[in-house]
């Protein structure tokens, strides 16, 4: 082993986000400018509260640049909005966690969408390393249960 780097990542690559979302049961709807939610901000969603703390305006909830919709979407289901990050660094997710949003929160990994972030990180890695000539596979680490991308090159 030569080195080990760890850290957090930002979402910038819409193609990788699409791959990640599909693995979790969503379809990316590019250019969709509104996402389905309760329709009125009641300060009862951690995602919404965090966004307000960081400078988002309640009147902008429901607006987005792209959206994630459940593959088996039914009338009344909520959606996830994809919007520019409030600090200008990449993209962020915005959705209503209340009511119909419980299911979304569970699927993406809570307020911080850690499951979606994990899938996104692996999708970015697989695409990049394949472009660098590596043979790329996915596996589950039997000890930790973590999903991994393994890249090999002679």
């Amino acid at each position: 082993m030569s080195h080990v780097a760890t850290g957090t990542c930002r979402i910038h690559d819409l193609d990788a986000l699409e791959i990640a979302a599909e693995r979790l049961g969503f379809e990316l709807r590019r250019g969709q400018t509104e996402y389905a939610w309760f329709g009125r901000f009641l300060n009862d969603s951690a995602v919404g509260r965090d966004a307000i703390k960081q400078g988002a305006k309640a009147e902008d909830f429901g607006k987005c640049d792209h959206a994630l919709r459940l593959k088996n979407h039914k009338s009344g289901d909520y959606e996830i909005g994809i919007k520019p990050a409030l600090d200008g660094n990449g993209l962020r997710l915005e959705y209503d966690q209340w009511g119909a949003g419980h299911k979304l929160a569970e699927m993406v990994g809570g307020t911080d969408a850690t499951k979606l972030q994990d899938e996104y990180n692996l999708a970015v890695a697989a695409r990049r390393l394949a472009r660098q000539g590596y043979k790329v596979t996915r596996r589950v680490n039997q000890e930790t249960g973590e999903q991994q991308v393994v890249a090999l090159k002679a």
Partner: protein
Amino acid sequence: MKEIIVSSKGGKVRIETKGFKGGACLKETLALEADLHLEKESDEKTPEYHQAVVTEAEHVKH
């Protein structure tokens, strides 16, 4: 054989490299880290990294 293993858990990514000589592993993961917009929390060089650097330095010396 060069190997790069990328894991992600709880939103945090971990990149391990194996089989590289010296600092080649750092160059090889630069583009990946840029694509990920990785904000590093740690970056540890393993014994193999230092061993390879010493071996290369000794080779140049001789």
